[in-house]
């Protein structure tokens, strides 16, 4: 009895190891493998899903035309998706798996800064290009020549929020509630506080409260904030927490406005938040309502295919992936050795000066960060994100 158990265990172990060994093989010379490090489960699954949908759409587009043309030859695209569970440590593992086992030439994602900052360190060390569609935290690309992004930075988003709120609400005082364990949320909250106090004078941020990622009750923090009577509350939080925070603030008798950041802009925000979020504002990467040209074409196709209006993550993933593919094409040929190929892609990425994305024009000035415009949208009674204002870098 005991012997058989041991034998079975041994066989299972051997099979497991075998699977590892096999995973690394099978590189086909006529395909190009791009990795995706996405939040498919965990706190923000809709973000990962939107990314994957956009990538799949792009892949089908190119593969249906015979593949990506590099140096006169067409290569089929193969996209490998790894789930990072919206956790920092899993994002590192997912990146390592893509680099070492799947042998991808470049990685798109993770989206959220909480995952993107640690994953970027891994990719930079392993000398593989990583392009994050949605991570706005400064640390993601800082001193990391292998890391790029397709969105603006929080240092730009913070002032956009302060200027807009000061004008729109005629606000003199502000309060902030943010997620202390999320790099994105914490970073943006700090920038906002700094900007607001620079503009309005010291002590004008009357409430500055934090919470944890898994928290569901914010009543104590919000009681403090409501008692300080701010003109508006700035909430740089993920959409799932936004839904709870806004509702609980209303439960505590708060009637003033909220200002949000780009992490609000998920297609799922309104299903979770409902009528509490109507009329609130947030800064984001693009506004789906009223878009034109290539952006509109993308939105319409996405909408027919997946039955919902793509959020900013979907659009940014589209741009980020196209950036990578552009770099691959710019190299002019596909190297046999994956390491040489990665190096060639990095150099090509660094040489892209301007890129016309569906989320606007991006200008790269020698770093991995593009200069591009932000928009502020308002949530309409039908739950649409309606364009209010566009702010471009000077």
């Amino acid at each position, binding site marked *: 009895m005991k012997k058989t158990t041991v034998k079975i265990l041994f066989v299972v172990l051997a099979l497991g190891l075998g699977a590892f060994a096999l995973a690394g093989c099978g590189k086909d010379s006529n395909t190009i493998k791009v990795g995706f490090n996405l939040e*498919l*489960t*965990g*706190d923000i*699954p*809709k973000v990962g*899903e939107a990314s994957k949908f956009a990538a799949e759409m792009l892949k089908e587009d190119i593969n249906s035309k015979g593949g990506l043309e590099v140096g006169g030859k067409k290569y089929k695209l193969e996209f490998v998706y790894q789930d990072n569970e919206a956790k920092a440590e899993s994002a590192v593992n997912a990146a390592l798996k893509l680099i070492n086992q799947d042998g991808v030439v470049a990685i798109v994602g993770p989206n959220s800064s909480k995952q993107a900052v640690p994953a970027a360190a891994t990719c930079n060390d392993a000398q593989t290009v990583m392009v994050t569609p949605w991570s706005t935290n400064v640390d993601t690309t800082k001193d990391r020549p292998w890391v790029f992004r397709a969105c603006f930075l929080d240092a730009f988003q913070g002032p956009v929020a302060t200027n807009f709120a000061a004008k729109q609400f005629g606000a003199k005082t502000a309060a902030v509630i943010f997620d*202390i364990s999320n790099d994105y949320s914490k970073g943006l909250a700090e920038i906002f506080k700094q900007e607001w106090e620079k503009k309005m004078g010291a002590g004008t941020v009357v409430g500055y*409260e*934090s*919470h*944890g990622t*898994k928290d*569901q*009750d914010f*009543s*104590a*923090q919000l*009681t*403090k904030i*409501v*008692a300080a009577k701010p003109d508006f509350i700035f909430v740089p939080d993920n959409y*799932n927490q936004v*839904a*709870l925070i806004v*509702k609980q603030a*209303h*439960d*505590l*008798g708060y009637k003033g406005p909220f200002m949000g950041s780009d992490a609000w802009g998920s297609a*799922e925000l309104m*299903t*979770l938040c*409902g009528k509490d979020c109507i009329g609130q504002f947030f800064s984001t990467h693009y506004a789906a309502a009223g878009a034109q040209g290539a952006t509109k074409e993308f939105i319409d196709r996405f909408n027919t295919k997946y039955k919902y209006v793509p959020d900013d993550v979907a659009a940014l993933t589209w741009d980020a992936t196209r950036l990578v593919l552009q770099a691959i094409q710019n190299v002019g040929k596909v190297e046999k050795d994956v390491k040489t190929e990665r190096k060639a892609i990095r150099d090509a990425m660094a040489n892209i000066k301007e890129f016309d994305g569906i989320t606007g024009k991006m200008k790269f000035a020698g770093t991995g960060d593009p200069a591009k415009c932000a928009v502020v949208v308002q949530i309409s009674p039908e739950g649409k994100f309606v364009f209010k204002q566009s702010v471009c870098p000077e």
Partner: protein
Amino acid sequence: MEIFQNILNALQFGSFYALIALGYTLVYGVLRLINFAHGDIFMVGAYIAYFLAVTLIGATGGFNVGLHVSPAVALAITVPVTMILTALVGVTLERTAYRPLRRKGANRLYVVITALMAGLVLENGNLALLGATRKRFPDLIDKVVWNIGGVAVTNLKVVVIVAAIIVFAMLQFIVTRTKIGMAMRGISYDKFAIPLMGIPLDTIIVVTFVLGSGMAGLAGILFAMSYPILEPYMGALIGWKAFIAAVVGGIGDIRGAIVGGFLLGFIEIGVVAVFPSTLRDLFAFSVLLIILWLRPTGLFGVAETTKI
């Protein structure tokens, strides 16, 4: 006024800890088993309530059977049915996971590990079945915000606090004043001698699980109404904290669970109200640690020789 508002907040959040801690304490009191899956039974209760509610009011996301009852009626049906179904989940868990081990005379440590695994199975089973997308619990009662001298009170908050106190009174009555309660207390003294007195051990254990899981189901509905975003892992952290509340109160004693639950609520809210909110869990659990340091058996606990 801030202080009254915070007392109210603490009572509301403490109510959830108390309701869940009651389930831990009941099962521990009878079986000397820490049912680590209890937080996840609470999560299952919230999901059951969700599916019942959306099906009844005919919203998208449930089973479309063409029902369109009014939210108030839906709530009246959802509460008892959820409690019954969640109780069934608890009993099934006892039947499939704990009873076979008990029959084989396994050490309690193994049963506790089984409970941990059962909790993970529930979490990940839900993830596999329903996916990672969150669910939004529909509004079943019209929210009313009363403003009494600067203190904002919603009708839901009052319902939650009253429910926790009624449940406590009811369980306290069952355990201390009824025959079943006497049998439960008897089993906790000596589970080998009790069957010899003609008391059906398994039936009493099933009753215990029905009571504990039913309360988790009720907590699930109330929680889903107060914090209407459901996800598979929602029960894990609150379950752990409620367990700690039960231990601090003195696990095995119903008064301990309710006091521990409210105490944890008050400490958590109090820390945030006075100190920067970043320090909440650090302070809250340091305070609990000190309480346990002074009274290792919890506030209402009695010293015992064997424990896990």
